[in-house]
């Protein structure tokens, strides 16, 4: 008996262990017709309006569609919408009907200029003039309104209350149109904005009159507008779209999605993207109209937001969402949700009623949740996931191996050293430019990224359509750096360190620990600057401490950080002078009136050519002033087993069949049309595209 415990059981266990090992080694199996993707983190939810992290975005991107999407060149195109039209209504208010009429006549008289302004029609409504423009924006309106006399400005009054305003808000709403109140926009339970005609003080008293004393309303003038510019988008929706449960998709769905986004009980992190919207409406089941409170051109891209099914979610409480939808969503996308095993995988199945059919070709997608880079690599090497985002140091090893294919593209992010412009000597532009010449960035790319990156030339990255390729980087030149520093008064002191007025050039460079790349950057900077006589002390802090005690407070000399950028050109929060307070993102306190103006204008501009020129000017101006020492844009590389997928996609009524190809939006942009060569027989026959 006891001998069995001592010898028998171990033998039994050993046999099991060996059997299971032999099973995985010797097992010959057939691959499933699916795409397996490794993820670092687990999605928190598959409800696209609640999720903020990239893991969730990756999965919901295959389940849901937006009205719009990015095409392979990262430019906006239609998805659930068939087409869309942008227009704007500019409303000018006048003292009385006579002055309004005079203005109308003046406008009629200058009909020849209407095409230049993109003006389509004009209408008189009481003492207000409503001007319809074919192109949203602020410039044309300013020009037009400049011709008029007797205008009345409108005040945007912001009201914040401790308790929901209830009756007061209802009364304000009821008086729209009748008197001086023109529009109301509710931000949340305790904050809203009312637009009132007249002078600032009048507007304030007018609004205060609605509130009983005990409500404690905080009333402030948010802005004064010479006229109201209200852009609008009219989406025409596809009529052949079905939800995964078979219900038709209609304009009710985007309208519901918008309301859900604004609902405070949802607490959507995407809410700010939709805060410029005044209201949405559904003129017909396949038309969806959005009216904005002010021109804000990046707002269009917010309609890439995944659309939720109103027929399932409308009227249901949050708890219901969490239990019944957030972990088993219903969408319109190429794949439908099948199974989620926590901390293991999320599996999606092919959607046979996909509106953009007959694809997808794959039976499904599996997102495996693996935790870290090494796990992803091990899973990739054992064919458990189909690709791996390679670390820079490992790229050359994979590149040499014939079994793999590599896809590289510049990422939409950059690393930088931020100089605290509040503190000397970094408040001196000459010093910053000298530092830009003193740091060998090509060497940094070589040693830290193993050559897989390019020197950054400012706030935008080369992948973007508004990037300015004419900005030339500062060249590494120690002598030039020395002479520039000497010009600024910094000359070598007795200990070899530069000094000015008895003060040594010595500063602290901080970064977060746990990030080896930033640590290496700091070390190279320390070495480069020592060579020209500047002393750098490196300090590293835990991420949360780093942010809370140093970055958010602006308490640092210089720091190493990076920005991962969104696909639009609006960087108001990072560079505008009004954003330099504690907790805000202009952490280096960069202030330049010209850049402020550009930042304000570019977000109101809808014309592509003007956006490109403004963005270019902004990039150039900021780069020349070096508030950051812009380091590099890293390249991201994916490795795929050779021949694991091909693409067969529709082009001009036929099919083209190609190996996986690289696009600006990445190698997996066409993943809806991926297929495994072993399963090629399931595909429709190849027909050459009809060339027009």
């Amino acid at each position, binding site marked *: 008996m*006891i001998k069995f415990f001592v010898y028998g059981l171990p033998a039994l266990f050993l046999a099991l262990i060996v059997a299971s090992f032999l099973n*995985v080694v010797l097992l010959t199996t057939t691959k499933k017709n699916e795409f397996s993707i490794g993820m670092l*983190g687990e999605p928190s939810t598959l409800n696209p309006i609640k999720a903020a992290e990239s893991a969730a975005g990756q999965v919901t991107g295959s389940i849901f569609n937006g009205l719009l999407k990015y095409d392979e060149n990262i430019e906006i195109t239609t998805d659930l919408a068939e087409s869309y039209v942008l227009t704007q209504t500019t409303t000018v208010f006048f003292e009385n009907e006579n002055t309004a009429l005079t203005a109308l006549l003046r406008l009629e008289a200058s009909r020849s200029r209407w095409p230049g302004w993109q003006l389509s029609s004009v209408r008189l409504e009481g003492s207000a003039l409503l001007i319809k423009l074919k192109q949203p924006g602020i410039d044309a309106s300013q020009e037009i309104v400049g011709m008029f006399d007797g205008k009345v400005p409108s005040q945007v009054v912001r009201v914040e209350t401790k308790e929901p305003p209830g009756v007061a808000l209802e009364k304000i709403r009821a008086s729209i149109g009748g008197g001086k109140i023109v529009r109301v926009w509710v931000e949340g339970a305790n904050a809203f904005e009312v637009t009132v005609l007249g002078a600032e003080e009048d507007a304030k008293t007018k609004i205060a009159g609605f509130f009983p004393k005990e409500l404690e309303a905080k009333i402030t003038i948010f802005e004064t507008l010479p006229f109201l510019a209200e852009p609008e988008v009219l989406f025409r929706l596809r009529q052949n779209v079905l939800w995964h449960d078979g219900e038709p998709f209609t304009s009710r769905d985007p309208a519901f999605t918008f309301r859900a986004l604004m609902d405070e009980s949802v607490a959507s992190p995407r809410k700010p993207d939709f805060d410029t919207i005044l209201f949405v409406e559904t003129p017909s089941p396949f038309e969806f109209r959005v009216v904005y409170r002010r021109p804000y051109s990046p707002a269009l891209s917010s309609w890439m937001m995944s659309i939720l099914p109103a027929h399932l979610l409308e009227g249901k409480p949050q708890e219901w969402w969490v239990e019944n939808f957030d972990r088993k969503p219903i969408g319109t996308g190429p794949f439908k949700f099948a199974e989620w095993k926590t*901390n*293991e995988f999320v599996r999606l199945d092919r959607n046979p009623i996909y509106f953009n059919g007959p694809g997808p070709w794959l039976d499904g997608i599996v997102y495996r949740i693996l935790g870290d880079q090494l796990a992803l690599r091990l899973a990739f090497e054992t064919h458990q996931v189909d690709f791996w985002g390679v670390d820079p140091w490992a790229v050359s090893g994979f590149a040499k191996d014939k079994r793999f294919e590599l896809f590289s593209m510049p990422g939409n992010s950059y690393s930088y050293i931020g100089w605290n412009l509040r503190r000397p000597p970094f408040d001196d532009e000459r010093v910053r430019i000298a530092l830009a010449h003193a740091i060998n960035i090509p060497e940094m790319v070589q040693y830290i990224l193993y050559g897989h990156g390019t020197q950054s030339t400012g706030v935008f990255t080369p992948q973007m359509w508004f990037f300015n390729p004419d900005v030339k980087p500062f060249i590494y030149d120690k002598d030039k750096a020395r002479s520039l520093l000497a010009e600024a008064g910094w000359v070598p002191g007795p200990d070899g360190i530069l000094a000015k007025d008895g003060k040594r050039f010595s500063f602290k460079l901080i970064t977060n620990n746990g990030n080896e790349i930033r640590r290496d950057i700091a070390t190279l900077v320390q070495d480069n600057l020592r060579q020209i006589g500047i002393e750098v002390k490196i300090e590293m802090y835990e991420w949360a401490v780093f942010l809370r005690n140093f970055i958010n407070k602006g308490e640092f000399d210089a720091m190493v950080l990076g920005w991962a950028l969104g696909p639009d050109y609006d960087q108001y*929060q990072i560079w505008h002078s009004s954003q330099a307070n504690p907790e805000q993102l202009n952490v280096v306190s960069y202030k330049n009136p010209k850049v402020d103006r550009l930042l304000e204008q570019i977000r109101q501009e809808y014309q592509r050519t003007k956006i490109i020129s403004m963005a270019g000017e902004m990039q150039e101006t900021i780069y020349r002033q070096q508030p950051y020492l812009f380091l590099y844009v890293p390249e991201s590389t994916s490795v795929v087993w050779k021949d694991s997928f091909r693409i067969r996609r529709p082009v001009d009524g036929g099919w083209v069949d190609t190996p996986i190809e690289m696009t600006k939006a990445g190698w997996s942009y066409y993943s809806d049309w991926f297929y495994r060569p072993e399963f090629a027989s399931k595909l429709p026959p190849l027909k050459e595209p009809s060339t027009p």
Partner: protein
Amino acid sequence: MLNFILRRLAISSVLIFIISIISFLMIILAPGGPNPWGELNPKITPQVKEMFRKKFHLDRPIHEQYFLNMRDLFTGRLKSIKDERPVISRILERLPATLTLNLYAISISLIFGLLWGVWAARHAGTTADMLSSMGAFALIALPGFWVAYLILIGLVNFAGVPVLGTQSYGIEFPSFANLWLDRLWHVVLPGTILALGGIAVQSRYIRATVLEAMNEDYIRTARAKGLPEETVFYKHALRNAVRPLITGIGSLLPALIGGSLIIETIFAYPGMGRLGYEAVLERDYPTLVALNFVVAALILLGNLIADVLYAVVDPRVRLE
């Protein structure tokens, strides 16, 4: 006996209360906070942050947060900050995986520990025994995560076998047996690594107690009676020497729970340990509060069971 158990339970509940306060303070006072969208995100306005903090009571003073967390924990309403699901169900759905892994690890710790200990005791004093002792101490001393990485990378590079998760993916299994063997492999691998330290520790206990027993008078008596050495060893010495195996279960439990935090994370294994690790990174306070509570309760319970068992098998021990 009953008296003893009741008294221990009373002490344990006080202990758990103190543990819950200390662990809550450690969790909540650590720098940073839950922040699902990343700290420096230009798209997130202060209003959104405020909305989020309100939703999860993060704007309240610490003692109120503690109270709210505890109240919700005991009424089963405590919800994760990450996905707003009840933490109880988040923990329960991971319990089977963790139990499987730990049961396997405990079993092989005891089984192989016994084998090794017996072997070492029978060869006590020889060079082979010295080498095995060195091996055992090495296994105790080596950090589990380091061994795990070595084995993982070795297996992938030289055998090319899948090593992560609970089964191999993306393939059709020819038969049901293959699927189950594959699943077994995905428990065996992390479980064995998790148990390496335990095996070594158990083997040392067994070796020591067996050698001690071999010097007892009753062994000499047995030998004097002329019993064969085989019988003396297995029937007389070993029977009396296996007591540490029983207490071992109690002492293995905390170590295994601590170890599975790391091993589960390395092996992408969907258990409670990984849940805890991720909750720490995400500052998911409610999940951490609940997990700490469950783990503390499990460990106290484990100790209690070990004490009781000890009294059951060893008549010399009295529980008063």
